[in-house]
């Protein structure tokens, strides 16, 4: 079954890397198909960044995301631009430390940036916290696949920190509960 | 061997006008190359477009006669891909300094191991005598019918500023000096630039009061001033006439170079 996952936040949060890691997990370790795309704006930092992954057991033909069923939102501007229109049957995982709006759809509030900063000591891994939470609530890829894809993708020397961040996300999602 | 052994005899006679200085410059270049004990199969001549750029067609080695202004970019590809080759470029003032100006400064900056011989006749000869970036102020050409109003480029200053390892300027009159300068350029690792001021009787001399070929050669002889002499004149507070140009070896240094033979 085709799932379309949209990630949004601000430039510099690792929104694109998140999508790449998720796609990689699906293809390399869960033997699925994935297509990852992103919006390339002229700005290198800041602004509302967006990337997307399509994951399917079957080969993927049309490569563009049209109606995402899963959202990962990490900034207020990203919510307004790319998350606010989420349909009611979608699932959204949002960084409750940065996004104050809430969608109509099922929503998991994950204080990823706050936890990354206060508990893990580096807010840069907030996107990995979100990935952990995403996988926990959707099962879109296996936790083992996600872990391997994270290890493939993060800079040398930061592996332990990133795995801790992923586990933190899984833990936060387990207790977050869904709203509404 | 002599320089004559480097000619494609089946291509002669050449297209140059009677009295043209390009043949002199080609002879000086080949004489210098002949002293290098280079093998013909290890040597490549490259050029762009213009009278100067026809030279490789008369030389027996592998040769690449490219598009206008781009000889140095093609040469960069040849030399970087096979640094064992000796690569020499013939170019002119229009080819090198106008359409090819960007490639010129970047080849100097990279200090790539090429030797460039520029036949500067201060005019577009092949297309019938249009003004070039080295046409002196006030000179007549078909596109400067009221006298050239733009200041000319000093190609040697440009090469030095951009980073070339070896820079010299001589004229078609100074054949021995020119040959020695080309040889020094060939021996220098990195980018070598030898500018040869030369006469174009058909398209420059005719319009600019050089009735005979010898008049323009004589002008080149009397208006080229050695660097040391020019510096002496400055020291002594002498006024240097605007139409004098510096000749001699103007730069020899050892900046790191690219594409040097292993």
């Amino acid at each position, binding site marked *: 079954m085709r799932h379309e996952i949209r990630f949004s936040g601000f430039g510099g949060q690792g929104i694109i890397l998140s999508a790449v890691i998720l796609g990689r997990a699906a293809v390399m370790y869960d033997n699925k198909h994935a297509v990852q795309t992103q919006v*390339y704006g002229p700005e290198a930092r800041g602004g509302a960044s967006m990337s997307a992954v399509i994951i399917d057991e079957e080969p993927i033909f049309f490569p563009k995301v049209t109606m995402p069923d899963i959202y990962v939102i990490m900034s207020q501007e990203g919510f307004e631009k790319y998350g606010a229109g989420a349909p009611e049957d979608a699932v959204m995982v949002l960084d409750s430390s940065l996004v104050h709006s809430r969608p109509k759809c099922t929503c998991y509030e994950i204080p990823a940036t706050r936890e990354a900063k206060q508990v893990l000591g580096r807010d840069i891994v907030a996107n990995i916290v979100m990935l952990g939470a995403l996988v926990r609530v959707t099962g879109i890829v296996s936790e083992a696949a996600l872990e391997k894809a994270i290890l493939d993708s993060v800079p040398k020397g930061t592996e332990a920190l990133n795995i801790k961040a992923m586990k933190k996300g899984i833990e936060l999602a387990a207790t977050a509960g869904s709203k509404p | 061997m002599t320089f004559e052994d480097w000619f494609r005899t089946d291509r002669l006679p050449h297209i140059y006008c009677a009295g043209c200085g390009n043949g002199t410059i080609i002879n000086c270049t080949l004489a210098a190359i002949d002293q290098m004990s280079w093998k013909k199969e290890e040597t490549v001549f490259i050029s762009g477009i213009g009278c100067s750029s026809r030279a490789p067609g008369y030389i027996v080695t*592998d040769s690449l006669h490219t598009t206008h202004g781009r000889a140095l970019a093609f040469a960069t590809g040849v030399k*970087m*891909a096979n640094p064992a080759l000796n690569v020499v470029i013939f170019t002119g003032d229009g080819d090198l300094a106008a359409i090819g100006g960007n490639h010129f400064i970047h080849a100097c900056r990279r200090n790539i191991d090429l030797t460039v011989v520029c036949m500067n006749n201060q005019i577009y000869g092949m297309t019938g005598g249009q003004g070039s970036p080295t046409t002196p102020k006030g000179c007549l050409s078909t596109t400067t019918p009221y006298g050239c109003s733009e200041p000319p480029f000093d190609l040697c200053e440009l090469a030095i500023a951009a980073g070339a390892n070896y820079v010299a300027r001589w004229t078609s009159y100074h054949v021995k000096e020119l040959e020695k300068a080309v040889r020094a350029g060939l021996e220098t690792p990195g980018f070598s630039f030898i500018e040869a001021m030369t006469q174009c009787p058909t398209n420059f001399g005719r319009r600019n009061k050089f009735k005979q070929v010898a008049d323009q050669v004589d002008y080149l002889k009397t208006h080229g001033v050695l660097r040391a002499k020019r510096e002496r004149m400055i020291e002594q507070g002498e006024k240097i006439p605007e139409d004098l140009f510096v000749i001699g070896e103007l730069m020899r240094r050892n900046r790191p170079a690219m594409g040097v033979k292993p």
Partner: protein
Amino acid sequence: MTKLEFWQGNTACAEGALAAGCRFFGCYPITPSTEVAEHMAVKLPKKNGIFIQMEDEIASMAAIIGASWTGMRAMTATSGPGFSLMMENIGFAAMTETPCVIVNIQRGGPSTGQPTMAAQGDMMQCRFGSHGDYSVIALCPASVQEMYELTARAFDLADQYRVPVFLMADEIIGHMRERITIPDKVAQTPRRELEKGVLPFQPDAQLIPGFATFGKGYGVHVTGLTHDEQGYPCTTNPKVHAALVQRLVDKIENARTAIADYDVVNPDAEQVFVAYGAPVRTVRQVLHDNPRANIGLLQLRTVWPFPEHALTIFKHAKVFLVPELNLGQIAREIDRHVKVPVVSLPKLGGDLHTPSDLVAALEAHK
């Protein structure tokens, strides 16, 4: 043995080139092709290859031609504005029969246009963009897998036919990441070297001369001027010029069947899509979603020389529908070869045709 990867199209392009033995890459950065250059910059030095960032695209094209004459497999990658700048030296490569590969990750034009958005607006420029008559080969990938495979094949075609070969990709395929299976090894057919005693531009039966690599003692003269079989300039003899230009065209056009690479789906269909590059993906989605419908697809992986014989496979075709990210450049070419209506389905702006766009077109042209 193969290897699974999750790669971006531009990465697959660079890796396909490396696997095909490309060891010289000259470039100038331009969106959306830059990742090809960045990947080559990392990889080539480790393979004793040369990566050089030139001062502009004119110089990039010149440098790869120069490198090719030393016997190297050489490539550049660019997009719209850079592609325009390369045109004069592309003509030089065609005239001097220099094997080289030019990657164009197409973006929206004209001019600076849409640097980060997809288009297919350079299909005619790639065929006719330099002055004078000549023929080239152009390949169009529709997946990351094809980015790899077609880039690798481009080098063999360039060497075999001694011609510039274009990988005419688009921003969508260049930038997306997807699953790709990498073969252990890519077969390479080397360039045919000139035999001693044969003139350097004397053609064989396939109208292609042997290659006189620089540094091997051939003493070859290579010029963009009209030249005889010796390679010497010969600019005022009408017969020499006519014969040379005709041969440059014929050596490619006569080989169109051998060069052709396409995929046929539902050859008995009455409504047939003809597509290349990213729009192929939408057509395949429509075919997948409507398995019972009588819809055909001709996917062109080779666009130039145009494989017109492939159109005749669809004997029951009543209409050819041609979705392109331009105003109908290849639709017009198809129209020259068939008697049934050809419907251009242009899409400008950078977005891909959606499946519903194409379903609507099927309805409208029943």
